[in-house]
């Protein structure tokens, strides 16, 4: 149905795609795998008409096509869910879904029709509770992701491209997504699916194409049968798997953080726990269960009643103080909350600890650069040029830079909100090792992740949240994935 051959895409200074081949059959789910920066997003943007390829051909249903703009691609029947949320905050859900192809007569929008159609698509996606008239800017990231999907579905597409659609979704949402994908493929629609989560590929994928450094290294591998080891080694050139470092070698020390009866009306209530030096505490829960909000409250970035003590002394509201006292937060929405897109990787890394690099306000730029370089190498940020604007890095590499920010300046407590979102398998293992190392050095870590195995694999202790209340608190060793899922979905405390 779709054949891409020898696609080359050059950015100034980077050859993002260097001869990529892809063939997709009608009715299949074709998975694209590759490390961060391998070129997956670039490839699908070429397909979606958002980028023009420098070389190569695209053949669709036997005819050569050349989508010169997103409009062309949409007309060809390609619909795309982009990796970065691409919604207009000021417009309603319905208007976003039908943006560019509104139901209209003589330019007048038929608002009732648009709303009804939007409602239908959302219901089909299993989210009738998202009201079509609500402004998108008021939605949570997860709900926005749903709207993005609804938008792709609203086109009568023959090919749907999904760039990490599950990154912002929780477990049950992913199941829902898969149900939709199966419905689509049953109708003969082809799906190109990008994800860093191998187990999803196993579940939904039919065939897999692996990219590495802008080249295709494997085409059409069977998604279910190919051994994990083989896929990982194709992607990374190494033979590692999703490994969690052993939890040995670190010993919990003094209590760094103590949270007592933290409450924010309507978001979370009566949350109490503590984190000791060298300990990793995980927060598990559904999207929307209030985990991010708890991190923000601990960090001083949002108001809540109750007490937060760092090293035994109360933390006052306001991020300035908490950072000075040794906390750091890697927020979940990196573009909106963490990055200065126009600035260099270095400037982004040192942003949180600028005073460490300054005497009387005067920056020691040499030291700043060398520290940034050290961290970039340590986390394998690619390309390894810390002077590049961070805008030009792939999503996963940007995430690494955000983490690098808090590896500086002697943190006592790190708050990590979805630290591996959008990070590839190889880098993930490195990040896990880094987090483990940090704990080993005596830093307390509070970790939020929507991937239960990640929480269980990394954390010493786990808090399970449901609708803003802690329903379970205990050693990670005593839990398994099944029990945690059971708790967060059914609310049954173990």
């Amino acid at each position: 149905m779709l054949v891409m051959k020898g696609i080359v895409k050059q950015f100034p200074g980077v050859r993002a795609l260097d001869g990529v081949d892809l063939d997709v059959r009608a009715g299949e789910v074709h998975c694209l795998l590759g490390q961060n920066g391998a070129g997956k997003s670039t490839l699908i943007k070429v397909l979606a008409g958002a980028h023009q390829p420098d070389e190569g051909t695209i053949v669709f249903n036997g005819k050569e096509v050349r989508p010169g703009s997103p409009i062309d691609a949409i007309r060809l029947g390609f619909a795309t869910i982009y990796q970065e949320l691409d919604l207009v905050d000021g417009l309603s859900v319905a208007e976003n879904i039908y943006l560019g192809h509104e139901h209209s007569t003589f330019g007048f929008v038929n608002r009732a029709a648009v709303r009804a159609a939007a409602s239908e698509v959302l219901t089909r996606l299993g989210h009738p509770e998202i009201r079509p008239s609500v402004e998108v800017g008021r939605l949570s990231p997860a709900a926005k992701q749903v709207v993005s999907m609804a938008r792709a579905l609203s086109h009568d597409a023959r090919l749907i491209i999904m760039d990490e659609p599950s990154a912002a979704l929780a477990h049950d949402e992913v199941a829902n997504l898969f149900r939709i994908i199966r419905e689509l493929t049953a109708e003969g629609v082809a799906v190109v699916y990008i994800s860093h989560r191998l187990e999803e590929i196993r579940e939904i994928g039919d065939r897999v194409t692996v990219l590495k450094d802008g080249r295709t290294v494997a085409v059409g591998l069977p998604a279910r049968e190919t051994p994990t080891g083989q896929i990982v080694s194709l992607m990374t050139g190494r033979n590692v798997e999703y490994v969690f470092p052993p939890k040995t070698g670190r010993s919990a020390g003094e209590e760094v953080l103590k949270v007592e009866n933290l409450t924010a009306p309507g978001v979370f209530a009566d949350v109490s726990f503590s984190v000791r030096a060298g300990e990793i505490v995980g927060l598990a829960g559904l999207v929307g269960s209030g985990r991010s909000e708890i991190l923000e409250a601990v960090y001083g970035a949002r108001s809540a009643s109750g007490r937060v003590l760092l090293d035994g002394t109360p933390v006052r509201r306001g991020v300035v103080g908490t950072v000075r006292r040794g906390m750091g937060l890697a927020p979940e929405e990196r573009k909106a909350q963490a990055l200065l897109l126009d600035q260099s990787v270095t400037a982004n890394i040192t942003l949180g600890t600028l005073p460490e690099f300054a005497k009387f306000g005067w920056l020691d730029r040499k030291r700043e650069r060398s520290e940034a370089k050290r961290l970039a190498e340590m986390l394998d940020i690619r390309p390894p040029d810390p002077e590049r604007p961070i805008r030009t890095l792939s999503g996963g590499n940007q995430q690494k830079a955000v983490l690098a920010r808090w590896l500086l300046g002697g943190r006592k407590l790190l708050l990590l909100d979805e630290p591996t979102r959008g990070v590839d398998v190889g880098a993930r293992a490195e990040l896990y090792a880094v987090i483990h190392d940090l704990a080993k050095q005596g830093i307390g870590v509070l970790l939020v992740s929507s991937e239960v195995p990640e929480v269980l694999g990394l954390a010493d202790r786990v808090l399970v949240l449901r609708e803003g209340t802690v329903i379970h608190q205990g050693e990670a060793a005593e839990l398994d994935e099944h029990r945690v899922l059971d708790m967060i979905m059914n609310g049954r405390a173990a």
Partner: protein
Amino acid sequence: MGEPTTDRPAARTAAPALSSLRGFGEMRHLGLLGALAILVVVGLVTRPANFATASNLVSILSLAATIGVITVGATFVIIGGGIDLSVGAVMALASVWATTVATQSFGPVVMAICAILVGTGAGLVSGLLIAYGRMVPFIATLAMLVAARGLAQRMSDRKTQLIQPENSFIVELSTTRVLGIPMLVYIFALVVVLGWILLNRTTFGRRTYAVGGNPEAARLAGIDVRRHTMLLYALSGLCCGIAAVLIMARTTTGSSTHGDLYELDAIAAVIIGGTLLTGGRGTIVGSILGLLIFTLITNLFILNGLNTSDQLIAKGLIIVVAVLLQRRNLKERAP
């Protein structure tokens, strides 16, 4: 710049109660209406005999009409993520062009059409420079401001051009009254209503929000962002052309000095009305309310005969208070 606090909970609890009122779309303008109400009260108290008269209301609306039409155009441009500094100058140019001896010889209808075409043309040029020349809107329209004023001065030889008696139809827009209200107020009202419909009920309007709020998303959704951007400036120019007709009617002249600093007034009205300078958000109703606040302030000063210096100081303070009031109101429902 203020820190964006993530006050989601408030939004959540307030949402249901408010949603019932939403259809009126008035909620967000509560602060503005409050400010207007206060000004009206001040007017009633300080000048009971003069303020609430029909003739004073008509005079307020006539005063607001010219810049009001421009404000409608400016609202579109600013929601679309741009800015148009050239409005006053383009209006002046259009008024001069329409009152040259040559144009006047064709009669009043041609004069009006001429003004509108000149305005639209100038807007189109700015739009081309911005959309296809990729110039920053601030600079492109600043250049247009400067050039249009220069051209207007050249065309008029820096003289004020009177509308000839045979073309007094134009002047009558200001002097003829229907139901006690001058024609130009009706024109103003018509432009506001058409602008509202265009913004809220058509694909063009809805896409304006997308182009201003997230141009990349708009592009990916298949909107021709460049063409749309260009059209927004043309629309602003069109409004300037209509405004030129109104100012010709009011002053009976075309002049290169018309509309001095209108750009600041129009932008201020739009922003006080709640439209973000960054684009993607805003309403026509808000802009018009913002404009009426400014006009009312001026009118009150005129009625009370305050001296200029005190007026300026008072104006500054009133703006601050009005905005802080509005802000307070917004905060209670902030997303």
